[in-house]
């Protein structure tokens, strides 16, 4: 099935670089981020599909934590960061948007741990709360003039893109 996608179709797949230094700082410019976790700063080739997002996440995300990739107008990652999430969705959302803005990015993809990610990949339905959270995140990004390109659910066994599933 061909699904509509805002990803640009390019002939080459994302080449995931080895995570280099420097580490993502807790402070981005003067802004102290509350949820950013130190991790590899990965910038690289254009994100062209959800598979590229998954590859980037596998190479860069800290296990079990939400992960954000900020993209420039060419869909190239300019900043990636894992985020610790202790229950405050608002703080997570604020930091995700702030990181996207201050990195000079115009779009982002967000990857969220989800216990049923693999089951969803195999055909199970996405629960309403997850869809609601993803929609809230996309609307908040659009409110400030940014794009949330995709929200990816993942667990140890697999991943599923809400964009590919046409629920975002």
């Amino acid at each position, binding site marked *: 099935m061909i699904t509509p996608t805002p990803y640009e179709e390019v002939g080459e797949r994302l080449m995931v670089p080895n995570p280099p230094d420097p580490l993502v700082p807790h402070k981005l*410019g*003067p802004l102290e981020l509350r949820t950013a976790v130190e991790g590899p700063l990965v910038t690289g080739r254009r994100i062209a599909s959800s598979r590229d997002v998954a590859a980037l996440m596998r190479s860069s995300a800290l296990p079990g934590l939400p992960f954000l990739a900020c993209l420039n107008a060419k869909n190239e990652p300019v900043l990636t960061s894992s985020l610790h999430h202790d229950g405050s969705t608002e703080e997570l959302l604020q930091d995700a948007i702030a990181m996207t803005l201050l990195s000079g990015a115009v779009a982002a993809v967000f990857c969220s741990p989800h216990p049923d990610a693999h089951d969803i990949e195999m055909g199970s339905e996405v629960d309403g709360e997850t869809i609601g959270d993803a929609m809230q995140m996309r609307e908040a990004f659009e409110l*400030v003039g940014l794009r949330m390109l995709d929200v990816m659910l993942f667990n140890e066994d697999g991943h599923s893109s809400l964009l590919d599933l046409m629920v975002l």
Partner: protein
Amino acid sequence: MDQWVTVFDPKDEAPKLLRRVVVLAQRRYDKRPRPAIRSWRELASLMEPGANLDREAFWVLPMDASNRLIGLYVANIGTATSAVVDIPAVLRVLLATQAASVTFVHNHPSGHSAPSPEDSGLLRRLKSALDLFEIDLFDNVIVGQNGAFSYAEARML
């Protein structure tokens, strides 16, 4: 003042005037200690030179928790009747300056400072974006040769 920044196309003549507005505002305000802004009229007075521009410009004035100006940014230069404001650019300024509140100022080259529906629409979008970051909107001021208009004064915020 920490930041006095103009964003412009160097080939354009209008930026010279914009730069002049910024310099004049800086001279009027940049004292030690920095005075707290107590009323919109102080802001209107500070930005009065902007009323003479022949095209619309949009300024972002981030403020600290004591209502002191942190800087003055030209967010955009428009035409004689409108200025398109890049909301992400405005937010970048406010996050980078760690503003507690902000006042927006723009001019009406027509001379009349009454707000247009487009002005109010833009302000609604800006306010929604500010709310995400809990940044207070101190005021939205329009300056024109025939006077100034304050959204706060008119209870339109």
